[in-house]
């Protein structure tokens, strides 16, 4: 049971890193990407190559993965971010399809459909990972690192400028902010952070193949961000918990084994539809709403102002 829970926690941690790094693009930079699994995959393949060919060091493999994935996302961002946002969504789907094909077909680098096997267990500063619990602790450390980096970023001048673009792009440009530079930087950072999840995955599963980095998974990652609530620290975490753990919870329901698969999918899909109908701003917005009702401090200052409001 401990191994099962540890396994779930590792997968959940990976999902949190991916959803939170994607939210840097979606929630803060206003870039709707359906290609985030590519950066996850590039990170996983790079870490696997470093581990197989050079060193078992998780730190070195992860830094290499971040560098390569950051470079790939930069290469994607520079030409593609020039197009308008709805076109970017389509372009990102194209990028995901191209990347999936490369993952599947570039046998000498990715191992094709067979993937890269025999990735050794990770070592971090002399600590050799031996069990799922070790990986759970490693993943928790990585989640804490990624969330800290994102929290620092969104409260930095860079993050504030992204939020300004999210609020009003024209005004931000008129104040001298360069949309392309900021969005390319956000995409590159997002890709680099996603690679951390790829590195954990490669070492933990010890096997990397294209089936984990598909368009389906990219869509699921976007769903995590939207369901949880884009543009907040809590939103992607809540979304990742929901998407990762909800199917696992359904397995505990007493459903006949012949129909458990379709029933799970219907409940799961139906729950997502209902969430979006009733809480379109994501689950995190409900918490904000309740907090706002309980504590009117946020609007107290506004109420104290002169009464010449414009309606």
């Amino acid at each position, binding site marked *: 049971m401990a191994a099962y829970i540890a396994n779930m926690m590792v997968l959940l941690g990976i999902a949190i890193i991916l959803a939170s790094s994607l939210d840097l693009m979606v929630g803060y930079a206003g870039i709707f990407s359906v290609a985030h699994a590519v950066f996850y995959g590039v990170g996983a393949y790079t870490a696997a190559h470093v581990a197989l060919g050079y060193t078992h060091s998780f730190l070195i493999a992860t830094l290499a993965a971040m560098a390569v994935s950051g470079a790939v996302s930069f290469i994607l961002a520079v030409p593609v971010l020039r197009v308008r946002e709805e076109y970017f969504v389509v372009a990102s789907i194209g990028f995901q399809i191209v990347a999936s094909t490369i993952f599947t077909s570039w046998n000498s680098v990715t191992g094709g459909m067979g993937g890269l096997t025999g990735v050794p267990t990770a070592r971090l500063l002399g600590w050799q990972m031996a069990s799922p619990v070790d990986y759970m602790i490693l993943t928790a450390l990585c989640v804490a690192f990624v969330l800290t980096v994102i929290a620092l970023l969104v409260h930095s*001048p860079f993050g504030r400028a992204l939020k300004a673009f999210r609020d009003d792009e024209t005004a931000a440009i008129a104040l001298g902010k360069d949309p392309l530079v900021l969005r390319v930087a956000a995409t590159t950072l997002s890709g680099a952070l996603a690679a951390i999840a790829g590195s954990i995955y490669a070492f933990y599963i010890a096997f990397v193949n294209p089936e984990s980095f598909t368009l389906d998974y990219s869509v699921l990652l976007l769903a995590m961000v939207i369901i949880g609530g884009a543009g907040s620290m809590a939103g992607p975490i809540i979304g990742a918990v929901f998407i990762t753990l909800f199917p696992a919870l359904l397995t505990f329901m007493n459903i006949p084994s012949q129909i458990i698969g379709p029933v799970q999918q219907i409940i799961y899909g139906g729950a997502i539809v209902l969430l979006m109908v009733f809480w379109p701003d994501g689950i995190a917005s409900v918490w904000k709403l309740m907090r706002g009702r309980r504590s009117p401090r946020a609007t107290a200052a506004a109420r104290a102002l002169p009464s010449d409001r414009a309606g």
Partner: protein
Amino acid sequence: MTAELEIDSLCKAFGGNLIINNATLELEEGRITSLVGPNGAGKTTLFNLITGFLRPDAGGIRYRGHDLVGLAPQRVTRLGIARSFQNLRLFNNMTVYENVLVSLENSLRLWRRKDGRDHARTQAVLERVGLWEQRRVRAADLSYAEKKFLNLARIMAVGTELFLLDEPASGLDGPSRVMFHELLRSLQKDGHTILLIEHNLDIVREVSDRIAFLNKGEVAAFGTPEQIFADEELTRIYFGVSAQ
């Protein structure tokens, strides 16, 4: 006085309609110039052309020796020209403080400045427009007049030399209008140049050193307020009164 901005034979058409038609105008450094004219005269289009949001079909725009044609809006702003919008376009989910701070800080910094310079500049700008006390209020929760002053504060914060203000005083009550005038005058005293679009002719008369009268995309007249207001033909065009 030297010309800070030179607009030369500027033309811009949309779908075959000439919106800016051979417009020529020079703004002198340190002066407040009002751009007036009937609706559809091309006033906001001229702002869009100067600030790089539109590219002219013909003609030139020079600012302190720099050719502005073809420059991206953010580049124009960095040269020292910034504009406001009729519909304000504040960052509504950010506080008053953040609206100004984000305008003046280097957006590529991944960490906050430790020397407190950005904070000091933000405080100075907000105190100047009378919004320091409201610094923690979300921009969306401000009164209309306060929003107008915050809009001006953001432009001041980016280090603007030439202010292009699109109806900055519309909808202001009496005391706010007085404060707005004082602010414009103090900006002028600091050596800034201001071009403003304004429909309220009382305000135009009160604040302007020069008036440019735009009609059907061309600068039909340019002069002091006394000269412009004395011209009956311009009054006829402005108020749409048919000639008898």
